[in-house]
């Protein structure tokens, strides 16, 4: 019996049946790749190549090829790190928090958003790892006995909390993503023709039979993992914010950082989900699954979280004035009017002002416009991290060490290169795995009989 209100929009349009779902969603996997896919994948590989070259240069020569210096000791690297970690958050929010909230619109987008989370975390991890310099002893960041050559780690350091927070986040997200995919992998297993494909899909479906007992366990595990992931949505970016906020640097040390970073992460994550899905639904012909209604819901989340972030900006600014602490005040005035004013105002306009267009129905329901806005959001959030990191560092307490900083070619290359990692992974995912959760979407079809 269906009791939903008449004013609810259908989550799957086009009067799809269960068979249609399977057919539509397994099509890219069973068919030869389309030319759009080939072009996209090639481009991604080029960027991946840029990453390889930049990384080689960094490791071979040393961190000196970056422009960071004694005042601005964190630059593009940590900006990119926070940028990518933030992007991951939408996946967890969609798959975990929206599951707990029984939001069924999550079902068509959770798979790709979770995939995005995992790839984004991989991109993020590159930066702190290679910033260590001697990356071959990177395992010293783990609490290993001293006989391994390391020294016992400092548990008081938020940087170590990061190691734990992000590795936990990565493993739980991966597990959640993978377990959610098992029934669908089994569906693909039953459809593929070649022997190799059969072997691998069989292997990864873990002998899924679709029995009632399997389903019961599957749902239980999903719920438990959602319960575990939900605090992770908060904890990961909270810990990232603690990297800054535990310090005594004006502009970094402010108590609103944890919730503000979390809101910003969800904001940027949804920005990236919108970027990907607006394109994917068009190219892959999934407009009946990822409907305008889905896009509208996402734009609303973008607007809310963007506004929350904006409230945090204004709060920080106000309290900096209110503190009557000249260092605090200067940090913020310098952000807005100092040499990096353009970064600050890019951040303000992209994150607080721009999303306000989503008050208009037209803006929320026009795909190309949403795509444009999602890019604006991504740019804005990159600038936010740049502003926080660089403007707070470049003029510290000692005017003699005031400097300017801009990324070197290698740093820019590394950043662009991570898009190569991200999109290469995403294209492979779109080719070999079902980008929409078939089994879940089948439960919300009108045409179920």
């Amino acid at each position, binding site marked *: 019996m269906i009791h939903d209100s008449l004013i609810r929009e259908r989550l799957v349009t086009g009067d799809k049946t269960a068979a249609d779902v399977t057919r539509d969603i397994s099509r890219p996997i069973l068919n030869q790749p389309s030319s759009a896919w080939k072009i996209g994948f090639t481009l991604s590989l080029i960027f991946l190549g840029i990453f390889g070259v930049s990384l080689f240069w960094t490791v071979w020569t040393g961190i000196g090829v970056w422009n960071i210096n004694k005042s601005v000791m964190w630059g593009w690297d940590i900006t990119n790190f926070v940028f990518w970690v933030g992007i991951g958050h939408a996946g967890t929010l969609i798959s975990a928090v929206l599951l707990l909230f029984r939001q069924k619109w999550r079902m068509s987008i959770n798979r790709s958003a979770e995939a995005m989370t995992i790839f984004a975390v991989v991109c993020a991890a590159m930066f702190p790892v290679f910033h260590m310099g001697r990356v071959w002893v990177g395992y010293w960041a783990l609490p290993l006995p001293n006989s391994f050559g390391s020294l016992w780690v400092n548990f008081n350091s938020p940087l170590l909390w990061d190691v734990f927070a992000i590795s936990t986040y990565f493993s739980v997200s991966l597990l959640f993503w993978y377990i959610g995919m098992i029934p669908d992998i089994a569906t693909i297993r039953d459809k593929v023709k070649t022997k190799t494909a059969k072997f691998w899909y069989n292997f990864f479906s873990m002998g899924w039979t679709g029995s009632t007992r399997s389903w019961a366990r599957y749902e239980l595990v999903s719920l438990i993992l959602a319960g575990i992931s939900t605090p992770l949505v908060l904890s990961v970016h909270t810990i990232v914010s603690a990297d800054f906020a535990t310090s005594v640097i004006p502009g970094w040390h402010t108590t609103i950082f944890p919730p503000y970073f979390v809101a910003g992460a969800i904001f940027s994550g949804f920005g990236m989900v919108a970027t990907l899905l607006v394109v994917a639904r068009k190219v892959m012909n999934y407009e009946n699954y990822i409907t305008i209604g889905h896009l509208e819901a996402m734009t609303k989340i973008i607007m809310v979280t963007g506004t929350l972030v904006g409230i945090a900006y204004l709060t920080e600014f106000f309290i900096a004035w*209110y503190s009557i602490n000249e260092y605090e005040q200067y940090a913020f005035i310098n952000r807005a009017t100092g040499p990096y004013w353009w970064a600050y105002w890019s951040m303000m306009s992209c994150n607080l002002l721009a999303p306000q267009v989503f008050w208009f129905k037209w803006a929320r329901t026009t795909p190309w416009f949403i795509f444009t806005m999602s890019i604006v959001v991504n740019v804005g959030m990159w600038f936010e991290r740049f502003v926080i990191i660089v403007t707070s560092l470049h003029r510290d307490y000692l005017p003699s060490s005031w400097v300017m900083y801009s990324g070197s070619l290698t740093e820019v290359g590394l950043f662009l290169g991570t898009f190569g990692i991200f999109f290469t992974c995403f294209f492979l995912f779109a080719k070999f795995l079902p980008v929409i959760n078939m089994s879940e979407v089948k439960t919300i079809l009108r045409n179920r009989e």
Partner: protein
Amino acid sequence: MGHGHHIEIKQETFLMPSKAKRFTMIMMILGVVLSGIGIATMDRTGTSHNTDNSHSPAKEVTTTESTHEHSVATAAESHDTVNTAGNAEGTHAEAAHAEGTHTEAAHDEGTHAEAAHAEGTHAEAAHAEGTHAEAAHAEGTHAEAAHAEGTHIEGAHDDAHAEHANVDNEDFGPRIEYHAIQKPWTTEIWSNLLVAGYFFTMISLCALFWYTIQYAANAGWSVTIKRVPEAMFTFIPVAFVVVLIALAFGKDDIYHWAHYEHLGLKPGDVGYDAILAGKSAFLNTKMLFIFPTVLIVLWYFFGTRLRALSLKEDNGAKGDVTYFKKSIRFSAAFLVTFGFLISVLAWLFMMSVDAHWYSTIFGVYNFATHWVSSIAFIAVFVIYLKSQGHLALVNKEHQHDLGKFMFAFTVFWAYIWLFQYLLIWYAHIPEEMMYYQIRYENYKSFFLGNFILNFAIPFLFLLMRKAKRSKWVFPVIGSIMIVGHYFDVWFMIMPGIFGPGASIGLFDIGVFLFFAGLFIYWTLNQLQKRGLVAMNHPFIEESVYHDTGI
């Protein structure tokens, strides 16, 4: 949920049972009696919270803070003050201040009144030489400079000297732990009324926030319980008037900055406080009254409009969504203004008690504490109505959802609470630490009790599915949370007003009981005024069957 059967949706009316009337009356009467006894037994000589000081006939300690531009010479010259060091042992120094006020304290054994400290340096000047007068009257520019800077006040504390001297480093700006000016005994009355008024204003406002987010998020499940927060919200004017009364009579004693405002000091004057002067564009009497009043009036207007719309919807036609759509617009307008401006109330009413202190998360922290208490109140009301045979359309699923909400925002509160503390503790910047210094050093049991009451207990109980669906857990845990969060608000300001000596007395308890009783009575009374079921709400069926869209 697989409800195959049909549930008839019909209107219900609620009549407050005489038992409920009696119960709330008893709460109010008990509240009045307790606070009456509290007032009658209050010490009328001064800061009555500070029991240790009860023997001091007259005390006046005024603080001066370091201002970076404070002239050393002025400070030193201004020491034409009288020091009476009644304590022969010389362990408790009274030092007079740059402001030129008198410090007189008759010291009995065991009454350690006030000691105005210069950070460390003063201790040397005054203590080491053992002659306070010397320190105070010394001509010149050395030890007294430090004295005038960052004068630090401890009251009622034996070992406060030593402890604080260690904690406070000389090199960091201002540190005033509390505004230890002589307070009239009525301060306790006004500060408690402020806590009660503010708490219940915010609870009612959060009730409005509750149902506006349901509209904004297109939530279906909550429609059957919507009337409860709708009734709760109407308490706003009552509670806010209490705030205004408390401020009108008590603001000079509650807020250091309000008292300072009267002094009308100019830069260079003795006792001039650059920090308070700098904040005066925000921390001033006009702002204190006008800005919050405008906000509350605006929000109350949104709330009444929404209530009117929902009544029209009840009486309208089934399937008519015009009122629903209008409600979404009003909700969005409310939410935007609420989001941007709610922190201002917390800054003005609560944070400015510790006038030199600041924390960017403070507004969020205030929201968290009130929001979760408001949800607890909703849950308790729903259970109560259910137990009286009302809300036939509400089932265990709705209750379970409310339990999840309580659980989630209990964790949220703890998250915000923890991180405000953790970040300040970690960075250990003196001007931020002072807020926690006094709360942790002097109120350890309150400090930890706050966390146990508001996090540990509700967390452990509400974690269980069974508990969220049980009949008795909500009333018990909900009450603990409401009392706990009221206490949280109390604890936000009392140490700032009374220093280390604040305690919970009969008056404090009486005020809470009275207003809680009044709030419950008011809400139940409002619930009588209209049907309990939002009849033509487009999501009513979804809510009844607890099944959301496809």
